């Protein structure tokens, strides 16, 4: 299996605090890798280093065979990211936002791409509305459209279904599942929704205090720890880790 992303001994320290410590993993082509961990465990820091937003203290991130630190701009053409903590400009219409990001990512046929994404993500009815006037479910689909505007081969999804109603959440999950298969994307999914992770991810990394404390397929992890579901595994690992700390 071709590895799209390789993370090697990645560390980040802020002043004297180590946010991420010597983590290594890889994401294969056409794989959704889950990244689980409590708030503040280093997930966002890890994603930020993979996106080139943050300079690692040591280690490296290799994407499609190239080091992100040395090839940041060219690799960013092939990547994208959504997070509930960042937004698109509220005063711009959905279409205007997609035009802007289409331009920024150098998309050749922007109108066609927007039309395609509008259909796929059901944006047509509010494409000319201001982004700030949309419901959270609609905003989420617009963010997803922005994240797919450049047809990325690597996608970072940080809690992509947070605060969505079950119907929209299911729509987004099904969409991610479908598009990752169709486009052979490599996806890193950070989520607190264990059912979502179990449904979408082939493999899972469990993080705590900046290190990977366990990894494997969701079923293997459940079996290995003798638990009924991934949530119980998550709780057990974190409690053990906190006690050790």
């Amino acid at each position, binding site marked *: 299996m071709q590895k799209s992303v390789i993370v090697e001994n990645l560390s980040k320290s802020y002043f004297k605090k180590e946010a991420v410590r010597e983590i290594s993993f890889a994401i294969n082509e056409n794989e959704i890798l889950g990244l689980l961990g409590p708030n503040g465990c280093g997930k966002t820091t890890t994603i930020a280093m993979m996106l080139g937003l*943050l300079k690692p203290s040591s280690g490296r991130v290799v994407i499609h065979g190239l080091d992100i630190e040395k090839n940041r701009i060219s690799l960013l053409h092939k990547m994208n990211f959504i997070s509930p903590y960042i937004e*698109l400009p509220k005063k711009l219409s959905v279409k205007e936002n997609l035009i802007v990001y289409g*331009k920024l990512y150098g998309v050749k046929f922007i109108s066609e791409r927007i039309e395609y994404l509008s259909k796929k993500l059901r944006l047509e009815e509010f494409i000319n509305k201001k982004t700030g006037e949309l419901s959270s479910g609609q905003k989420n689909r617009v963010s997803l459209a922005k994240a797919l505007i450049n047809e990325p081969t690597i996608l970072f999804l940080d809690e992509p279904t947070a605060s969505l109603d079950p119907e929209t959440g299911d729509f987004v999950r099904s969409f991610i599942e479908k598009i990752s298969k169709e486009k052979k994307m490599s996806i890193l999914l950070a989520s607190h929704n264990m059912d979502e992770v179990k449904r979408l991810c082939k493999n899972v990394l469990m993080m705590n205090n900046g290190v990977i404390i366990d990894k494997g397929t969701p079923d293997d992890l459940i079996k290995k720890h003798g638990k009924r579901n991934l949530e119980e595994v998550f709780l057990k690992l974190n409690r053990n880790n906190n006690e050790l700390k």
Partner: protein
Amino acid sequence: MSLNRIIGLFLRHFFLIKSSLPRILDLIYWPTIQIILWGFISKFFTTYSDYYNNTVGVILTCAILYDFLFRSSISFNMLFLEEIWSRNFTNLFIAPMRISEIITALVGTALIRTLIGLVPAILITSPLFGISILNLGIPLFFLFLSLYIFGITLGLFVSSGLLRYGPAFENIAWSSLFLLAPLGCIYYPIEILPDFFQNVAKGLPLVYIFEEARSILVNQVVNYTNIKNAFILNGIYLFIGIALFYYSFSQARKKGSLINIGE
């Protein structure tokens, strides 16, 4: 550099302005009020001051020039602040944009914002006060260009601070020009300043620009040395501003401010 990406960032701000009448009115309102106020002050000084006697419009012309500087600098900062306020900062920095493209796009967009605000204000000076800034002649172009470069440079300094220290630096963005105004000798000759401040002021292009404007309007003499000095100093400050912006970006990547600002 990619023209497509520069246009993309320009469009982000163009869409924002064109869709909002209150935003356009806000851009026009302050320069207009400022110019009207200085118009009356100018009229008063022209009548009662020996220095400004029979030199209609010196103060008002300098006020317009200073406002142009103020607007270009604030416009540059505003474009950066807009990204922070709209929580779009991270989206922008994970797009494949080079720093040079960001600076170029902001320089162009800031000029348009500045002109939207200032052109109506300049147009009303003629019917209201019988003064035309065009009386400065060809040197006017160089004075505007010089002021624009300095405004952008100040914008770069402040944006570097925003990149490095985040929204906490916002207040500096608003006050940066007020700090320089007394040393810029906008409405008075440099000799008014105490010796120490005169030496400091000579290191600013503003002194030469406003000295030149007064020289043309009061003495009807064009002194290209002033213009040349202003451009030389501008070149030095612009170089430092760009270098500082690159350095701040690199520091922001090290310290994690690009993520903290964005959330």
